[in-house]
């Protein structure tokens, strides 16, 4: 099998001391970032990008470091869900429902290690899914011409709003805003400056890393300044962790749950716009409907801990499929990873698999390795991470802000970029208040140029005929999916979202 030969090559790349060390560092930092409330996977990866660049890492090592952070953050999110009843990041929301009650019943250690195992199973199955599915998707994507790519980008934006936002108008607004920001700078095809207002710094366009760090990390600092809830760590000391290993019967009882929800989460992750939060939500509600015969879900049922954790980690792996195979990320963190690739001058998409097989398979092998490392880090050493939770926001948030500044300054050495980042931070805060999703903005700034180039190429090839955008069967299929994906959430999305809200509120009031 060709796949296995590729995978073996990948392991040959990933199994160097340097890459192993980076994976371990990434897993460790990622778990910490996931565990700390207020620092999610997208923030975590975003503020570490400059570090990867300044360490002079090549493409494969940087990706190994940053995807390990990504997987690690997905593991880490559960820790504060279980111990504090505060999700460490958004996907870990559902883990609060049964994880915290388990902890209150004196089973905190069991809940932590069980969810660690569930995370492992989810991520492991999803990585296999990535190996099997991504090359198939590449085969389809190789048939794409410029018109199809334009339709694909449109599809990504139109479906992105779907579940992540209650208001389709707002996610469309966010996508357009991002695309508009991407057009700033010298036009690549004709060489005329656009929207630069004579400011020389803008001729190169806005650096999307600046936008990402500002929108994600800095706006988080503003949110904390506004609310100033410094007491998030109050309960942590009261809970005893208890025995670290769950009884074998508990693991046996939860295995079918883990397997089912891993598959479910993976599918949710592959779908554009769904991402890990939906993965854990679907997994939890599906399992609840399927196996919760005695109404024990919500009172500390181990299956209720395993389901969302397997689901969200599987979704994290699934989200890598469209990012690598099509160059179209489906979630915030994979968008940030795409930014890394673009900054390294690597264009993800079907050609990545033929032109840079070392990057793809090295990364996949690293994911397997990272997953085992995470299991090792997260079960015996979980006590270490619980201690990190005691760092209060009043110490943590200044550090986050300063690391953001250092990172951006380190890349460009320009005060102008820092000012732009502050502006994005303020904008991010206002937009978050107004419930405008930030991910479409990031995706817009990232994909804007590629989208425009494909549009112009398609139309130029066909001598200025705009109908060329919808005159092949593939484009028609893509546009149909896009339109359905945009309209469907208007009908059913509100219901799903309001249920998610209700469950979330249920989890957070105590």
């Amino acid at each position, binding site marked *: 099998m060709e796949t296995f030969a590729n995978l073996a090559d990948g392991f040959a790349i990933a199994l160097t001391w340097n890459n192993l060390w980076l994976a371990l560092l990434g897993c460790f930092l990622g778990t910490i970032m996931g565990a700390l409330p207020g620092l999610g996977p997208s923030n975590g990866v975003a503020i570490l990008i400059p570090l990867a660049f300044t360490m002079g890492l090549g493409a494969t090592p940087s990706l190994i470091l940053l995807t390990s952070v990504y997987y690690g953050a997905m593991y880490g999110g559960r820790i504060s869900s279980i111990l504090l009843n505060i999700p460490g990041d958004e996907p870990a929301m559902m883990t609060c429902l049964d994880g915290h009650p388990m902890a209150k019943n004196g089973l905190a250690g069991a809940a932590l290690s069980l969810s660690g195992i569930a995370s492992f199973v989810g991520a492991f199955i999803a990585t296999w899914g990535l190996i099997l599915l991504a090359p198939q998707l590449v085969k389809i994507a190789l048939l794409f011409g410029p018109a199809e790519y334009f339709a694909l980008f449109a599809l990504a934006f139109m479906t992105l709003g779907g579940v992540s936002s209650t208001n389709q108008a707002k996610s469309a607004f966010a996508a357009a805003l991002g695309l*508009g920001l991407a057009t700033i700078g010298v036009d690549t095809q004709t060489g005329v400056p656009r929207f630069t207002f004579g400011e020389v710094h803008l001729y190169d366009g806005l650096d999307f890393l600046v936008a990402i760090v500002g929108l994600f990390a800095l706006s988080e600092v503003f949110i904390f300044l506004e609310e100033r809830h410094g007491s998030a760590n109050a309960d942590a000391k009261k809970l005893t962790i208890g025995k670290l290993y769950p009884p074998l019967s508990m693991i046996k009882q939860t295995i079918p749950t883990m397997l089912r929800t891993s598959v479910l989460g993976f599918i949710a992750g592959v779908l554009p716009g769904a991402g890990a939060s939906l993965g854990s939500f679907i997994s939890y509600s599906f399992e609840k409907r399927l196996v919760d015969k005695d109404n024990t879900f919500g009172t500390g049922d181990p299956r209720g801990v395993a389901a969302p954790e397997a689901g969200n980690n599987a979704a994290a792996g699934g989200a890598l499929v469209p990012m690598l195979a099509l160059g179209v990320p489906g979630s915030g963190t994979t968008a940030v990873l795409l930014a890394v690739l673009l900054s390294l001058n690597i264009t993800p998409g079907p050609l990545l698999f033929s032109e840079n097989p070392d990057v793809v398979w090295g990364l996949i092998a690293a994911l397997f390795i990272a997953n085992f490392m995470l299991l090792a880090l997260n079960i015996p050493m979980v006590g270490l991470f619980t201690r990190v939770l005691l760092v209060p926001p009043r110490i943590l948030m200044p550090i986050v802000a300063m690391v953001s500044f250092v990172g951006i300054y380190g890349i460009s050495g320009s005060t102008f970029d820092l000012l732009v980042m502050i502006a994005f931070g303020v904008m991010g805060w206002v937009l978050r208040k107004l419930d405008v999703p930030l991910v479409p903005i990031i995706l817009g700034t990232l994909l804007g140029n590629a989208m425009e180039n494909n549009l112009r190429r398609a139309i130029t090839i066909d001598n200025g005929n705009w109908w060329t955008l919808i005159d092949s069967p593939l484009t028609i299929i893509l546009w149909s999916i896009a339109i359905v994906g945009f309209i469907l959430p208007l009908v059913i999305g509100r219901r799903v979202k309001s249920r998610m809200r209700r469950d979330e509120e249920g989890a957070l009031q105590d």
Partner: protein
Amino acid sequence: MSDRIFGVVGLLLAIGFALAALNIEESFLSDAVGPSGFPLIVAAVLALSSIVIVVKPDRAPHWPSLGRLAELLAAVVVMVLYAELLPTLGFVIATAFAAAYLSWRLGSGILASILTGIGSSVGIYVIFHLIFGLSLARGPLGF
């Protein structure tokens, strides 16, 4: 109400964007679409979604009180000052002040804030500059 204002601002933004797009000077080598085609499509989407937001606003978010808003504004001012003064003061001094300020405003006591400021500044300097070799702003004292 917030959403209506937001929508109107968005609409103005879209109009401004479209006007700026129409004013892009044509280059002698142009393709069928030209440099302003795509921005005009984007402006149209921006305008349409803004109109929908005005017509169908969501519930107003919980805005902070005036005091909190001043707090945020002060933080922005400190960050801008930080960005501007970074090249003159040098990384360690500027960062210590900025981090101490943020820590103070997030609820640390005076002494704790100063310690947080100095600690995070020196810590970042050691990790990012001395260990990883990131070039940071150099002040008059060489750090």
